[in-house]
């Protein structure tokens, strides 16, 4: 696992199997530690990444995660982009409702991940795949 966290150099992980979710988690943790996020923020970001990576795998049919260290000028942060070419989300409001699931989970992954990060952007439509960008800033 690389510990190199050069600013703006995205690190890519392909998500195609359960083990890849673990790899995403490990990469995000390594990067979060190197970017000096607090332990709570590390854990929150790793957990959010775990949820979104699993969504990419289970609902998107696989895709990729791109982890980048970003700098707002005042502070450092980590941006992760999860992208898949799956069926997309037809009703985004419903998907973001706590407890709503189509896959037998707790229905908290997507909505919970949004609460775990500082910035959350989702770009999706039925039949167009899903692209979720999350950012967590170091305090």
């Amino acid at each position, binding site marked *: 696992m690389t510990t190199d966290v050069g600013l703006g150099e995205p690190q890519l992980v392909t998500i195609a199997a*359960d083990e890849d979710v*673990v790899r995403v*988690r490990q990469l995000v*943790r390594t990067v979060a530690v190197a970017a000096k996020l607090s*332990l*709570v923020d*590390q*854990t*929150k970001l*790793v*957990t959010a990444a*775990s*949820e979104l990576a*699993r969504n990419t795998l289970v609902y998107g049919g696989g895709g990729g995660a791109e982890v980048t260290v970003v700098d707002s000028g005042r502070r450092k942060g980590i941006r992760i982009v999860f992208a898949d070419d799956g069926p997309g989300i037809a009703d985004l409001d419903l998907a973001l409702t*706590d407890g709503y699931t189509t896959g037998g*989970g*707790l229905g*908290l*992954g997507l*909505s*919970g*991940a949004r*609460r*775990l990060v500082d910035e959350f952007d989702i770009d999706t439509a039925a039949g167009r795949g899903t692209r979720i960008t999350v950012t967590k800033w170091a305090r």
Partner: protein
Amino acid sequence: MGLTAAEGERIAALLDTQADKLTASWTDAVAAPLRGRLTRAELQRQVQDLHRAIVEALRAGAFDLTDERSADLRATLVELSRGRARQGFTASETAVTVFGLKQALFDVVDVRGGDAQVLADLLAVGQVIDDLGLFTFETYAKAREGLIADQAEQLLELATPVVKLWEGVVAIPLVGTLDSARAQVVMERLLETLVETGSPYAIIDITGVPAVDTQVAQHILKTVVAARLMGAECIISGIRPQIAQTIVALGIEFGDIATKATLADALRHALRLIEATRKARSN
């Protein structure tokens, strides 16, 4: 692979006429990169086996690795690459065993003689060796994957011990990633131990779980419900501050399940409950 019968016969003859010199030179070519990690005698035996298998496959008719007449040769290559994979050799150290034949051929066969027929045959045999090498490589990769799968399974077994902490209290310390496969093992182990020991209390300790996401939480919740169905109560311990905050942000509810920060707290809690039950009975 496309060797004609005539080519096959000529190459077999080429390999066979100076067999001793060829295998000796081949063994040398293989021994160098392995740097004494296998004895020369062992290498020599492997090379001779391989040599014999190749010559026999060539003699058997038009040569093709997928052909059933090459079954012996395939078996020899599979055995070789599996052995190398188990002994921890790298892929190139494995492939060199096959590619060493090329080097040996150039050493033994008189290339400078300029016989066009010999050169053409050498080219053809080069193709054959490449195919053998690729096959070895694939088998090696498969063998490694098999090893990794085996180890993952062993790890699954290793990482989920259920320990008896006290009379009536068992604990299962979870370490690492709790994926579906491990969660299943954990649940089975815990339920079995509950029956074996007749314990009314089980502590699930998640100190060693680095992140609790919804999947992990769901696995834990299911285990707790299953234990309840069997009449046992679960306590979840090892909830560190960062995990607690993450669980709250995610919106996971543990409901009426007792949760504690440390294993010691959980044990104290269980003992108090046992004590309370005992008192209630004696009254």
